[in-house]
């Protein structure tokens, strides 16, 4: 068997399904050339325009009386701090968008999901346009809302914290992109979130609910993955030093705990058949 025979066999694995062929026959016989869909471009543009019109309608007198540019409005109000928060928020937003796309493409355990496939296809169809329009649209909305609110600084800080949370979450997801859900080392049964939560509090007496055999935390494996769980913690500690209000910090902390225990935990914990004494030393 030569290499090109192997290649031919590999290519044979790729084939059109009967449904695809039938669809093709129907399309060819219909005699109508498939029109390109511009919905992906027109619809977001329309939404952004509509949003813009609504914002104008909400604060017409303020917009006319003050200078045209919202940035200048903010400057005039003496809010240099707001501009800094705004810039940082926009940077975090762009970064969160890129990380979200990368996560959709890279996380292995998501690749079997039909929804994720549809989402990837949707994003890929006109993704540069989507990216530009969504960034411009959201950025513009942030500026408009921030300049029209009295407590714009707190609003921007909240947005900053939400995007910071989004960034750390997507980084954590990307770091666990190849991980499978935690499972029993004896019967391979996957653990539910509720079971994981229980077992994380009784690390020396964990039993599989299916086969009832004892399982132990894999010390070596877990040491590296625990670091992923704590990735968002430094930001939480740094927040008071950059004058972020306590309640905004609280929101971040709640989101962080909910994400870590509600989603991330099963992908960062591994169980072993050996007890801690039997496991090899870490060094």
């Amino acid at each position, binding site marked *: 068997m030569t*290499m090109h025979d192997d290649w031919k066999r590999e290519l044979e694995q790729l084939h059109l399904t009967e449904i695809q062929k039938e669809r093709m026959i129907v399309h060819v016989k219909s005699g109508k050339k498939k029109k390109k869909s511009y919905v992906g471009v027109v619809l977001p543009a329309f939404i952004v325009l509509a949003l813009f019109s609504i914002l104008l309608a909400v604060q017409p007198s303020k917009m006319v009386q003050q200078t045209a540019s919202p940035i200048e409005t903010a400057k005039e109000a003496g809010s240099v701090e707001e501009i800094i928060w705004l810039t940082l928020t926009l940077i975090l937003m762009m970064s969160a968008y890129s990380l979200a796309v990368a996560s959709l493409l890279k996380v292995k355990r998501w690749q079997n999901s039909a929804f994720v496939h549809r989402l990837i296809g949707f994003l890929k169809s006109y993704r540069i346009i989507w990216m530009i329009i969504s960034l411009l649209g959201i950025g513009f909305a942030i500026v408009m809302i921030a300049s029209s609110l009295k407590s714009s600084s707190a609003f921007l800080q909240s947005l900053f914290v939400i995007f910071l949370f989004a960034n750390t979450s997507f980084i954590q997801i990307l770091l666990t992109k190849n991980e499978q859900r935690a499972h029993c080392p004896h019967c391979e049964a996957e653990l539910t979130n509720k079971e994981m939560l229980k077992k994380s509090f009784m690390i020396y007496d964990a039993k599989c609910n299916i086969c009832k055999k004892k399982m132990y935390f894999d010390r070596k494996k877990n040491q590296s993955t625990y670091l992923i769980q704590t990735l968002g913690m430094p930001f939480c500690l740094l927040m008071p030093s950059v004058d972020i209000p306590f309640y905004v910090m609280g929101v971040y902390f709640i989101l962080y705990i909910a994400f870590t225990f509600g989603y991330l935990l099963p992908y960062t914990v591994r169980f072993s058949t050996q007890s801690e004494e039997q496991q090899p030393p870490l060094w």
Partner: protein
Amino acid sequence: MEIEQLIHTYGDYLYHIAFIYTKDERAAEEVVQDVFFKFHQTSHRFDGRSSIKTYLTKMTVNRSYDYLRSWKQRTFSLLEQLTGTSTGADHRVLQKEERGEITNAVLKLPVKYREVLLLYYYEDLQVKEVAEFLQVPVSTVKTRLQRAREKLKQLLPEQQWEVLASDDAR
């Protein structure tokens, strides 16, 4: 031959060709669909000088090139470079690891090398026939084959490459 029969007979074959050019299963399906659509509309132009298979193959290659030159494909490539994700829509239907080692290695090559490998090894054409098909000199085809093999040698394990090298000496 009726269009249904053509699709059932040559659909998969043309799909493989389009896939090697576009590196994207959905794009390959679109290309094949366009080819059959166009053939159905302009079948009166087919004068029978070549076989219907060769005619459809040529149409598929031309349509694949149209796709590669298209704005849509270029935006994909640009964003892939920006985000650092892999080529084409590799993640779509069939995962990279499911495609096989040789196909993945071939897909990493530039299109000019992929096409000579496809015509020479997959379609079993002689070098002269490949040159006529692509409308390039015979020496160009030989050079491209040589370079494609060199690049493949770097991508594939040694023992597998040796088989391909000896096979090419036929």
